[in-house]
């Protein structure tokens, strides 16, 4: 799920960046520091959309650097267990398929698919239902439910399931 949140960060700035463009330099450094980063708590930080406040700068003992507490607004993507969302299939393998939802990678094991889905090897590996009415292959859009969210260092990875009446392959919706 995407969220618009206010986060806080202590920004360190060298005095050579002070002067008229202090604020500009701070904001530009903030964007470079946080955009594209991943944290276990907030998920993926996509973009900084604005600054809420910049607190008083404090000189760090023994250094010329000054620390400014900055509150900023940003868009984040944070997956939750139990969340239902759309994803695009990227790789189909014998034990399941990988899918992507924006910056997030997910894996759906063949144990988490509807009964009767069988792996078909070949040029375009896919999962086909027993009555051949459903075929899941690379670049298909699927609706899945997140079953596990795993954070290792700064990587987030999810396991998902398409076992459910309304989950699975999405047909072309107008």
């Amino acid at each position, binding site marked *: 799920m*995407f969220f618009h*949140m206010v986060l806080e960060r202590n920004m360190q700035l060298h005095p050579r960046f002070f002067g008229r463009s202090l604020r500009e330099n701070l904001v530009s450094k903030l964007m470079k520091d946080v955009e*594209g980063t991943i944290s276990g708590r907030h998920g993926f930080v*996509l973009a900084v959309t604005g600054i809420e406040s910049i607190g008083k700068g404090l000189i760090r003992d023994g250094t010329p650097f000054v620390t400014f507490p900055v509150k900023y607004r940003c868009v984040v993507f944070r997956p939750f267990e139990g969340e239902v*969302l759309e994803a695009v299939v990227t790789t189909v393998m014998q034990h399941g398929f990988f899918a992507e939802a924006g910056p997030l990678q997910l894996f759906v094991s063949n144990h988490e698919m509807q009964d009767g889905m069988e792996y078909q090897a070949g040029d375009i590996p896919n999962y086909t239902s027993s009555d051949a009415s459903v075929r899941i292959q690379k670049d298909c859009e699927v609706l899945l439910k997140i079953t596990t969210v*795993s954070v290792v260092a700064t990587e987030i990875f999810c396991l998902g399931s398409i076992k459910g009446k309304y989950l699975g392959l999405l047909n072309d919706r107008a």
Partner: protein
Amino acid sequence: MSGVGEEEENAAELKIGDEFLKAKCLMNCEVSLILEHKYEQLQLVSEDPMNQVSQVFEKSLQYVKRFSRYKNPDAVRQVREILSRHQLTEFELCVLGNLCPETAEEAVAMVPSLKTKGRAHSDEAIEKMLNDLSLVKRFE
């Protein structure tokens, strides 16, 4: 999330932590407008904006463009307005706005918390809400 040692998270029961329950959720179409705007601003100052953005940004932009139900900003506002009338949390509102279920049963399958949390949304109320939503799509 595993390894964090806090209360088990579960979106189906709206157990997503205070910080996120109080935060503003964004539907894919809203994120699309924000990210596209940011990208346009980058285009004004750089010849190669794609090089300036992270892979996280790029993938997210592609995703929200692909899975946006509504393209028109007015339609997006209308969707939020319709859903806001129905005592939903931000999280529930956005999941419904993103997935546009067609029946009450489908809506509850996608957002199980609709039937819990002491609000007891009746099937009729849910169907009416989904109906109002589908009208926005038709007249976009």
